[in-house]
């Protein structure tokens, strides 16, 4: 197969775009589409200070790489979930990547805050691992980006993550979540940082190829608790559909964004309350994080480590 642009040998075939590209043309194809996403959805402005949440996987490290390449000089945040072996191995990848891009990295550890890892914390909250994990990650990402005054929080969520969660929301008609998903969530001064997903329209396969071709050393291993997660089942089914009808995933998600716009215009935001301790949105007086620190008798302030490789 040849590159559609230069006739050199192709490195990847993109059936959704009906094209095949060589290494150089593929890398610039991905970068161009990320640039378009950033511009179209107004994700970033020149001079924005950015915090990238990194797990050591292909998505987040590629995102850190690409935003660095674009000149945003993002800082990284790694959340150590305290999962035996897996957390240490992923932190190692993140640290060596931070050194390579000469960036600043923040490391916050659940075990250092609570004396407990995610497994134990999920038990205390009587919640499934993945749901408890999501709650802590969202809280810590937001709190640290606000504390560090890094106004934009970027995550590596990709097309497949979004499409599979959209499918899940539709299958069970979770209307309370359905229209909350977006490429960008605006800042809410004093409460929430601006959140962006520059890979919203880029597939996992494209990111894996991008990471490989850019020489990014990421962790292949999956979180041991994600085994059997529903997301993986949805992804498997969507991949089979994609294999039969290339481009379906992209169409599904773009159709969602189009409808989201119409939906948002006709709808008022419901009343939201905020945690009386930390100002994070919450259902009751206190958010999940602050009520847990109270319950376990842990101080409100916690420490996290700084690794500055930028000098």
């Amino acid at each position, binding site marked *: *197969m040849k590159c559609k642009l230069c006739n050199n040998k*192709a*490195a*990847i*075939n993109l059936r959704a775009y009906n094209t*095949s590209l060589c*290494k150089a043309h593929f890398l610039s194809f991905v970068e161009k589409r990320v640039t378009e996403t950033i511009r179209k959805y107004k994700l970033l402005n020149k001079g924005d200070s950015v915090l990238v949440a990194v797990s050591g*996987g*292909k*998505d987040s490290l590629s995102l850190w790489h690409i935003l660095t390449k674009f000149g945003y000089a993002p800082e990284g945040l790694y959340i150590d979930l305290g999962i035996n072996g897996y957390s240490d191995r992923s932190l190692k990848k993140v640290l060596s990547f931070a050194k390579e891009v000469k960036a600043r990295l923040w490391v916050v550890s659940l075990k250092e805050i609570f004396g407990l890892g995610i497994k134990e914390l999920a038990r205390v909250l009587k919640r499934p691992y993945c749901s408890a994990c999501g709650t802590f990650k969202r809280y810590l990402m937001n709190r640290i980006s606000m504390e560090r005054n890094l106004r934009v929080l970027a995550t590596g*969520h990709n097309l*497949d*993550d979004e499409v*599979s*969660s959209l499918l899940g929301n539709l299958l069970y008609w979770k209307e309370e979540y359905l229209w909350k998903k977006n490429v960008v969530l605006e800042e809410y001064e004093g409460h929430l940082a601006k959140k962006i997903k520059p890979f919203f329209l880029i597939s*996992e*396969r494209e*990111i*894996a*190829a991008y990471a*490989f*071709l850019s020489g990014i050393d990421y962790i*292949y*291993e*999956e*979180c041991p608790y*994600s*085994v059997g*997660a529903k*997301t*993986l089942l949805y*992804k*498997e089914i969507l*991949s*089979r559909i*994609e*294999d039969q009808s290339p481009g379906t995933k992209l169409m599904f998600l773009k159709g969602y964004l189009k409808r989201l716009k119409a939906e948002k215009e006709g709808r008022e935001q419901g009343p939201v309350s905020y945690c009386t301790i930390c100002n994070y949105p919450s259902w009751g007086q206190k958010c999940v994080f602050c009520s847990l620190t109270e319950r376990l008798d842990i101080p409100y302030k916690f420490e996290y480590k700084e690794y500055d490789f930028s000098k």
Partner: protein
Amino acid sequence: MISILMPLEFDGKKMDIEKPLRIRQLLKKLSLNPEDYIVVVNDTLVTDDEIVKNEDNVKIIRVVSGG
């Protein structure tokens, strides 16, 4: 004999092939959906029409993550 390396799945598995075959057919033989993998032959990322022969090092990388 081609060496197939699939990080974390069939790490280091070896497979004998009678005659050269295309990546597309190799994935089919292994019952893998091509949408879920990228394939690296002798350290180069290749498309699925690439032909592998004995003595090639094939790395099949799964692209799906738990999220």
